[in-house]
Structures are given as structure tokens and as C-alpha cells.
């Protein structure tokens, strides 16, 4: 069986054709780089996405701080992760790259700050 999908690894958005059997990719065409193959393979088994959101901050110049998952999160666990992240309140200052939540939901994925937050 074959399936078409758009690779979301970068803004190029290559249109991939994936030939698969029993949910496993046998061949991938249409990709411009090797990330397209990796994307198609995980997309067929366990689709993942980068998660970016904000975390509440106490005593900072702004009330929220942008954060991201340091690795792509399984798509099926996005909303579960959001609930954990939205329950966290940090104290300013926070530095870009700081780990905000370690090993979220036991996935081995850390949530890290993507900007500095100075205190008022």
C-alpha cells in the first residue's frame, strides 16, 4: 500500500510517497534529505511533534515564559503534556536553555526555556 504525506521536518514541506506494509514503511520517495525518511518512518509508527508553549512565571517582567520540548513529543500525548506544563509556576529569573520540567510524564523528554526572563 502507498500513502502520500507532507514532511514537516522543515519549511520545504516535501511531498513524500510512502510504500508500507503492516504499518511499516518499506520505501520513501519524494524526500530532499534523509530527515524525510526518518519522518515517514516515525509517522507510520509513532508520530511525534515538537511541543512549544508557555509556562507561568512569578516575579518576572512578563507573566509567561516560552518553552519547548527538547525532543519531539508523541502526538498522542500532547494534551497530557500541556496539562503538566500548565500546572507549573516558575520563579524569575529564568535563563534561556534552563530545564523547566525534567522527564515530562516519564517520556525522557525535558521541557526547556526558550527565552530569558529577568525579574522585576
Amino acid at each position, binding site marked *: 500500500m502507498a500513502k502520500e504525506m507532507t514532511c514537516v521536518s*522543515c*519549511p520545504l514541506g516535501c*511531498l513524500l510517497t510512502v510504500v508500507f506494509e503492516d504499518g511499516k514503511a518499506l520505501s520513501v520517495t519524494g524526500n530532499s534529505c534523509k530527515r524525510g525518511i526518518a519522518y515517514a518512518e516515525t509517522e507510520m509508527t509513532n508520530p511525534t511533534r515538537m511541543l512549544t508553549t*508557555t509556562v*507561568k512565571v512569578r516575579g518576572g517582567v512578563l507573566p509567561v515564559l516560552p518553552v519547548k520540548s527538547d525532543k519531539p513529543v508523541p502526538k498522542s500525548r500532547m*494534551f497530557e503534556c*500541556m496539562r503538566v506544563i500548565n500546572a507549573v509556576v516558575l520563579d524569575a529569573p529564568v535563563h534561556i536553555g534552563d530545564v523547566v520540567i525534567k522527564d515530562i510524564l516519564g517520556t525522557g523528554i525535558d521541557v526547556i526555556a526558550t527565552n530569558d526572563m529577568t525579574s522585576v
Partner: protein
Amino acid sequence: MVVIGGGPAGLAAALRARDCGVKRIVVLERADTLGGILEQCIHTGFGLHYFGEELSGPEYAHRFIELLQKTDITVMTDTMVIGIDKNRVVTAVSPEHGLMKIEAKAVVLAMGCRERPRGALAIAGSRPAGIMTAGTAQKYVNLDGYMPGKKVVILGSGDIGLIMARRMTLEGAEVKMVCELMPFSGGLTRNIVQCLDDFNIPLRLSCTVIKTHGRERLEGVTVANVNERFEVVPGTEEFVECDTLLLSVGLIPENELTKELGIALDSVTGGPIVDEMRQTEFEGVFACGNVLQVHDLVDYVTLEAQLAGEGAANYILGNNQAEKVYVRPECGLGVRYLVPQKINIKNHRDVKLYFRVNAIYKNARVVLEVDGTVISNKRKVKLAPGEMEDVLLKAEVLAAMREDSRVLVRVDV
């Protein structure tokens, strides 16, 4: 050198000018922080071309802000430029310094763009709360930390609209649909996949909002399909209950200062007409970033700003200012505009011509012709108006050109 705007364009232009030997540089920024719109673009996807890694907006900006802080470039935030005169005297105001006049040898315009507001659209209805541009909602959610609504309809499928569809969904809102007037989306395909398809948000093409309902707060919108002449198809009107309408219906380069100087604008890009170093038709005034042409990727803003920074430095230091002979590249079939609009053939360096196509093309070719000879002919699986393209005019080709040479970029279907 005065740089107006401390977003990605202003930052890169200032840094490059410093590297080229400009001694006194000042960056004037209206907001209270540097970074421009990147500060609220917390999603990732920035920097793949420039840094070879996927960064969020604030992370991308941070790299340049850090570099800038290591230099003696002067930064003035909370500072609004209110005019530039014919002698390149820049007038600015700030709460800290009051009214200032800065005499500049060169000015780099890096003011960015703003979103087309509701007032520019012909939507019937009163003016209840809950109608705003997607970028305004993005600021509310990502910087101010509050959600502007619970049930959302988005008009326009530009990238900011798509990104906000996902962002609002993740924060618990119900995004009912994204309506797009055109028969195709103006956003990147990857954003349609990861922002709409992932969350089962319908994208309704050839569809628009014709009426808003509610007096104090938005209570719903009427959507309807349109035909190929963008006329409402009778009988397709449908009421959609919502408390928020986000508009992602285009970006307009912010060229008030440019116009005041009498600088000619390109009627298609909405930005000034520039040469290959991004010098406008006013000598010593350069432009880069979204004030020049609306970009999809910040990486290209950085590259463009570096050219403007280098051009401004050359102008100040008197390098490469010998006789200039300009040719004006022409838009052939399928090409809506070209930036730069003119090229100095005495400046022997590779010139990238950036353009957008006027419709979606599949398996087409991008052809560059000089004096009727095909210089390059590149196959493209897909060309779309939402994605900026470029074609390279090599230094050696430029060197062989004459004053009356014709450069043409076209799409071969």
C-alpha cells in the same frame, strides 16, 4: 549609521555593518525589547537555513541579541522614529531621552510589517469584542499569558493564522474552522499539516466570513463559499457560533517613514524599490526585512539584512561607490515581483533574485534568461504564492552584461 527597528532585520544589518568597519551605529526600537515579532513567535522552525537547526523565534533572536551586546553598537529601546529628512537627520522620541535628532550618514529601514486589520475587509456587522488579528492574539497568549477566547473561527490561512489555530487548540480553545478566500492556502504546507490536520481543524477553501454577530461580545459569524470571482455563492451561507474571530489576511510593509522621504515603492511588494545591496532610490537609505518584502522565513530576512548592512557600510566608507549602471530585471510569465528591482552590473558579485509566483504550479520550471539566452532552468515539483523562491544571477554572467541587457525570470509550465 542609524538602524530603524530592532527585529531580526535590524539586528543583522547592524551586526554586518559593524563587521564591515562602521564605527558608530545606533539601533532604534519602538518596543521595550529587541527581537521584534520573533519574541512572540514561540513555535519552532526558525533557523534551519541559517543555523542548520530548528529554533523557536525567541531563540533565533537571542543569538543575534547576544552578539550585539558584545559590541559597542548603541541600542535605544522604547524609541519611536517619527521622521527622516532629506539630509538623513532622523527624529525620534523616547520617554528617557525626549526628542532626539540624529544625523546619519546612512539609514537602514528595518521597520517590518503589520497585519491587515478588520477595517480593511468588507465584513458586515457591528464592532463587538473578540475580533482581532492573529498576531494580536499571539501576543495575548504568548507574551501576556491570557487566552482571548474559547470558540474560535480564523479567517485567512496565512502562517500566523495556522500557527494560532494550533496554539489556541493546545491551550484548550475549540477552533471551529479556518476559512480561506482563495482556492489555496497562503501558508506553508507543513503548517497546514501540523497545525490543522493534526488537530482535525477543517480548512475551508474559497470560503469567507461575510457577517459578524453580537454587540458587546462576538456571538458568531456567517461564513459563505465564494466563486472564482470571489462573489458569495447564494445558499451557502452558514452561521458558526464563536466568541473570537482571528484575522490572518495579509501583511503590509510599514513604510510611512519611507514614503515621507519620497522614496519610490514597488506597487506589488509594498516595499521600496532597491538595488542588489538593498539601497533604495534615496542615496544612503537602505531597506531590509519585511519592510522591503514580506518574507515567510526569517533566515532570508537575516541574509537580506546582511546585504543592506554591507551596502550601508560601503556607502559610509566610500567603498564600491564608483559609477553604477543599473539593469532592471523583468517579471516574465507567472512571476509577480522580483527583489531587487535593479542590479548594478558594475558590482561583480552573485545576486540572488527573490520572487513569488502568481498561482500554484506543479512540475514547473523556473527559467532565468539574460538577453534571450537561458542561464538557468530549474525544475520545481511545486511552486506556490505562499513560498518565496529565488534564482541566482552569477557574478560572471553579470560581468558580461551591458547597459541595455535584459534579465528575465519566468515560470515554464
